[in-house]
């Protein structure tokens, strides 16, 4: 007669799983609330409350864009494209040897050279190109060169990381086959490894070029040339109607470069 109470109902999770989940969520929420309080301790809420009015004010100043300003933007646009392209070129050229030194199957020494190569990759990757540009403008002076080098230094880590992962995933039997013909070390790389990673390499490079176009549009904010320089001067003179034009040019450039990169990657991969 009491049989019914013993039938086990199906449950999504066991009680222990439930407990663990609740504990995890509880701590996450607690941590978030704590961080929120810490972060907003110095926030002036009057400014936040004022934001919609500010937004409509800025919007009003931005809105009839000053199209005549476009004529002054062609040269900076060309500079921006050059920063991105030449920077990618430098980055890729340095990234190739770094990638071969970092890949487990091609590195000359697993305990000394590989950690060094990985350190280069991490350093390059964790510092944003704007910070690289900030440093380089202080070191070699404002101008296009600082932007190009900044983009180059930032690209090394990205390209080398993806490339060394591609090298580690190659089909070893081809390497084995080429080596069996008596090929030397460089011949093995040339005939067995490069043909396998070449499509990935072009894909990665074009992908990085696309990202670099995006990033080089704003490098001028810290003095490294290109569209960002115009953005900076328009912002500091509060010429919001010029800012709109610059934003639209940046948007168009980004859309075009994304399209180009998607097409090339489709063709290559």
């Amino acid at each position, binding site marked *: 007669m009491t049989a019914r109470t013993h039938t086990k109902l199906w449950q*999504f999770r066991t009680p222990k799983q439930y407990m663990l989940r609740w504990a995890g969520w509880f701590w*996450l929420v607690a*941590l*978030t609330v704590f*961080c*929120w309080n*810490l*972060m*907003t301790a*110095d*926030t*002036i809420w009057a*400014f*936040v409350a004022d*934001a919609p009015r*500010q*937004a409509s004010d*800025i919007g009003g100043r931005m809105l009839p864009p000053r199209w005549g300003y476009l004529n002054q933007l062609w040269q900076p646009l*060309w*500079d921006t*494209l*050059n920063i991105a*392209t*030449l920077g990618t070129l430098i980055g890729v050229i340095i990234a190739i040897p770094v990638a071969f030194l970092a890949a487990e199957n091609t590195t000359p020494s697993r305990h000394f050279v590989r950690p060094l190569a990985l350190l280069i990759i*991490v*350093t390059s*990757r*964790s*510092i*944003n190109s*704007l*910070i690289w540009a*900030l*440093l380089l403008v*202080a*070191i*070699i*002076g404002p*101008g*296009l*060169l600082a932007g*190009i080098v900044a983009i180059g230094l930032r690209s090394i880590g990205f390209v080398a990381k993806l490339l060394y992962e591609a090298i580690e995933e190659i089909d070893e039997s081809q390497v084995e086959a080429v080596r069996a013909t008596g090929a030397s070390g460089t011949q093995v790389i040339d*005939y067995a490894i*490069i*043909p396998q990673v*070449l*499509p990935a390499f*072009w894909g990665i490079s074009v992908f990085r070029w696309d990202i670099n176009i*995006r*990033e080089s549009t*704003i490098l001028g*904010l*810290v003095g490294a040339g290109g569209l960002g320089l115009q953005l900076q001067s328009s*912002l500091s003179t509060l010429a919001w109607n010029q800012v709109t034009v610059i*934003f639209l040019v*940046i*948007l168009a450039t*980004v*859309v075009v470069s994304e399209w180009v990169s998607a097409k090339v990657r489709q063709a*290559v991969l």
Partner: protein
Amino acid sequence: MIGAITSLRTWKRPPVLLKDPRWRWTILLGSAIYLVLAISSVEVNWFRVYEGLERGWKFIQGFLSPDFNSRWRDIQAGLIESLTMTLTSTVAGVLISVPIGLGAARNLAPLPVYTICRSIITLSRSFQEIIIAILLVAMFGFGPFAGFLTLTFASIGFLSKLLAEDIEGCDSSQIEAIRATGASWWQVVNYAVQSQVMPRLIGLSLYRLDINFRESSVIGIVGAGGVGATLNTAIDRYEYDSAGAILIIIIAIVLVVEYSSSYIRRWVQ
């Protein structure tokens, strides 16, 4: 017997990409012309670069012997802002991007909802963090609150796009099976979709946490709080040892976040 020897040909390696020689030469020539034009348009003041090399050397020395102490209070304040901004904006970004991601998945949402959600994603993805930060700082005033909004806005585009793609790639037979039991839309999402995309959502959130930290160290340059402002000041004052200390801290935190997030992702999947 005499003619046989002339018909022997040496093996020539076929090209891996661009099989058509005409295409190959056009692209090669085009890039050569571009390179000449681009490099000639870059004006470099070599004297300034030479002068700067000394400063560059000083920076490397500063990086190798970082000074954590003399500016520690500023660095600490910047780091706390960066870290709290990172966590709160990632949590807020995930909370907002889950409904948008659900709405942007074609297999769950009707066409009008899909279009709206996709346009939100495109809007958020087309401008990069710095530009959003400039606008939001102008509206909300200086400080981490503007940074929090910037990173949240950027996270929404990133997370909802990848989440929506993941939901669209779900195993439809499981959705079908749950739907066949008479489940409502919510129950389908809860029992069929959630269990399939949850590991990936956690992975994506952790990845975004990583990106947000990196970005939070940059947007300070335009006044949106975080350690970027401290870094900017340090470089402007040529205090390379303090700047080196900040960069080392950023690299270390990025490393810790990256390794722990890849560990958690492996544990979740």
